[in-house]
Each structure stands twice: as structure tokens, then as C-alpha cells.
């Protein structure tokens, strides 16, 4: 290779290397502030996947189904009775809530509660899109409701009613 192109080749190789960043997996999180912890768990594909595993193992589906809700409220919409931030969901899992949500403090470790919270957020597609699981472990026939375009329940005027007909 002639020397004028060598610099470009090295630059290109370095540019390619920049794409090699690999997401890190934390098998145990050390003490972190709740907000930092929330961010660390939420946008991490490994934690979301582990949360999905725990969701099945701890029988969350028994009340919440696979996100659509049943005896318990649905988790794939963006309505939250007790707050939808990571630390609020983790607190819901660890301490329970009135009207049926049991406390899992002595059933799962804190790290596992955070992983579950990350997966619960993933059910409504809140984390970074590249961290979301490519497919669910369970069959599901609806997208997370947050990804649906909101449609007016009742047409505002007759004209907009005609326009929405397809």
C-alpha cells in the first residue's frame, strides 16, 4: 500500500474499532444511589432479560398477565398508580402496595427487584430502544400501548370522522 493511503486506512480501522463498544453486564451491583441505579438497570439489555426471566419465575403473570393485566393492573400502558420511575417500581415490588400487590422483600434480592423493574418498564417500551428484548419469551399479540398512536375515542367533528375513515 502506498503511503498516502496508509493514514486513511488507519483512520478507518480506528473508526471501525469505535463500533466495538460492548455493553457491560453487572452480575452484582454495589451500593448506588437510587437514581443512578435506576439508570444503570433500565438501559441494560442483560438486566431487562434477567427481569423477564424473574417475571416468569416469580409468577408476576399470575396477576398482571404478560403485561396486559388481569387481577392486577396492566403493565404495558403508561399509567402508573404508584409512580412509573425505576425507584418507584422497585419500591412497589419490594414493599408491596395496597389492594393486593404483595411485598417481595424476602422473596427476591434488591438487585433482582431492580431487574424486574427494568423489565416492567420494558413492557411499555420505556428503556432505550436498543436495550429492549428482540422478542418476548411469551407469545404476545399487541405492541406496548405506548408505541401505539393515540386515536381519539370519539370523533370531535363530523369532518374529522370522515377523514379518519380509511
Amino acid at each position, binding site marked *: 500500500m502506498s503511503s498516502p493511503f496508509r493514514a486513511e486506512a488507519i483512520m478507518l480501522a480506528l473508526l471501525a474499532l469505535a463500533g466495538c463498544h460492548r455493553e457491560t*453486564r453487572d*452480575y452484582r451491583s454495589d451500593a448506588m444511589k437510587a437514581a443512578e441505579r435506576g439508570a444503570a438497570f433500565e438501559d441494560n439489555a442483560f438486566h431487562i432479560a434477567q427481569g423477564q426471566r424473574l417475571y416468569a419465575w*416469580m409468577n408476576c403473570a399470575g396477576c398482571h398477565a404478560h403485561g396486559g393485566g388481569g387481577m392486577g393492573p396492566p403493565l404495558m400502558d403508561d399509567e402508573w398508580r404508584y409512580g412509573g420511575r425505576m425507584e418507584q417500581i422497585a419500591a412497589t415490588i419490594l414493599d408491596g402496595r395496597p389492594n393486593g400487590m404483595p411485598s417481595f422483600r424476602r*422473596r427476591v*434480592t434488591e*438487585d433482582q427487584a431492580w431487574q424486574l423493574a427494568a423489565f416492567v418498564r420494558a413492557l411499555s417500551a420505556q428503556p432505550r430502544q436498543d436495550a429492549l428484548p428482540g422478542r418476548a419469551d411469551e407469545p404476545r399479540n399487541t405492541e406496548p400501548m405506548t408505541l401505539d398512536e393515540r386515536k381519539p375515542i370519539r370523533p370531535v367533528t363530523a369532518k374529522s370522522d370522515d377523514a379518519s375513515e380509511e
Partner: protein
Amino acid sequence: MTTPSILDKIQSAAGNDGRHGQLISELFSVFLVVTLVFYFLVFAFLLWAIFRRRRGDSREQPLRAILAGWVGLIALGLAGLTTASWVFDRRLARADSGPALEIEVIARQWWWDVRYADNDAHRVFRTANELHLPVGVPARITLRSSDVIHSFWIPNLAGKQDMIPGRENDLSLLPLREGVYRAQCAEFCGLQHARMALDVTVESPAAFAAWRAAQLRPAAAPAAGPAQAGQAIVTGRQCASCHAIAGTPASGQVAPDLTHFASRRTIAAGTLPMSRANIAAWITDPQTPKPGNNMPRVPLSPAELDAVTAYLETLR
């Protein structure tokens, strides 16, 4: 070589310790001999062609007779190998027939969940990462997977069989020699694929019956001391969400059954040898000896850790 003889035998792909492995090994020898004969024949012809003296006239001699003989020989060889395959296939099928011990093995990331079936529901039990087989008795093993594709392989006894999520496979074994063998997951299944070993013990039918009777007993409740405190922690804290111990409220189904945990030779599918120090090390931080496995670090005080270790040691 100064290696102890048991190490030479514990994991050997020759497969001479089980009927199925032995038959496949014999068939392999038949194929090896037949193909070697043809290999040397081809070489002999090649050498003959190289060193043959060129005659005065360059006209090719018609080799009709030799060619016909050669084609006939190949047809004979292939027919022989086909017949041998068929005969060995029948012999393998005969080795499977008859009443067999029914065992179900479920592969999980990264350990083996083993269930001994029985028509009487009270005689069904569950163990983990160990398989006991009576010598000379056929065993029919149902293979499942709970997460990704694994492969069940006891090299000393038989060939491998894949375990596919959502699908049931089966494999028959007929162990011929008593011994301790190491089986290993044979399909890459993630981070700890290499630390997914199964401890196989082939023993006399009497020893197997004794082992089976011991496995059927529930765990004895410790009367006093740290072991009793440990039982309260194991059955009342996070441990019981995933692990089961027969005879106690702990009934989780997603992690190894601990009813007779301390009677096994290893911890965590062949990761650590069974000892008090290793039990304590494993519970303190399971992510150091086997990073990425599904057991979390449960926060325990030193006194609690001591109690839990003492209790687990009583699970024989």
C-alpha cells in the same frame, strides 16, 4: 504418565462403558477397516500408475476387466457397509427394548434438573447435577430444555442428544461397567457452558436401590444449634423462592433441589468440590466462581452465613 487411572476413564469418548457407545464404537471400527482397505488399494493403483514403464507404442490399453472388477469391489464394499449399518441399527434397537428406568432431565442455564419418574407419585423425586444408574439396567431418559438448546452427552456411555426448548427428545442408556463418569453439556449454551457438568454414577442395583431410598426421604429438621437457625433463614428468606427442600416449606422449582445437597460430589454443576468452605464461598458470592449464573448474592450477616452453611451441610 503418572495420571491416576480414574482420570483416564472418567470422561472418554471411546464409549466402552455403555452398550450403545460400545455398538457405535464397533460399527466405527468396521467402517474404519473397510475404508482403510480401499484407501490402500487406491494408493497401490496410484503408485502402479506412477512407476509403470511406458511401452514403445503410446496407445492406451483398454482396462475393461480391471475397471469392471474395481466397480464391483466398490459396490461390494458399499453394500457391506450398508448391511453393517442396518445390523448395528437393529442391535441398538434391541438394546432399547424391555422395561427401563424412566428419568427426565431438564437442562437449564447452567445446570441439570433430574427427575426420577415412578408410577407411584410418592416415589417420584428430584435431584440436580447428578445421575445414578444401576449397572446392566436400561435407562430411558427424556430430555427437555427450559431456555436455550443444550446437549446431553455422557461420552463413556452413549452418543449425544440435543435438548431443545419446547420439544421432547429421548435417549436410551445401558451402562455395562460400574464407575464414576463425567458428562458435559455438548452444545454451546451461554456464558457458563463449560461449567455445566453432570456427575454420573453407575453402581450395583443394590447400591442404586439404597441411594434411591435415601433420596426419597425428606430432609431431617435439625434439632438445635446454628443448623436450626439456618433452616429458618433458608426456608424464610430469598433461598426458598427458587430452591426446594422436601419436608420444609421451601418449594421453589426454578433452581436445584437441595433436599440431599450435601450428599453430592460438587456444587453448581461441577464448579466447586463439595466442602463446608466451598458452600460458604458459594453462598457469599455465587458470581465469583461462576459469573453470570442465576443465583443472586443474598445479603447475609456472618452469623447468618454460618447458620445457613451449617444447615446445608446437614442435607445429606
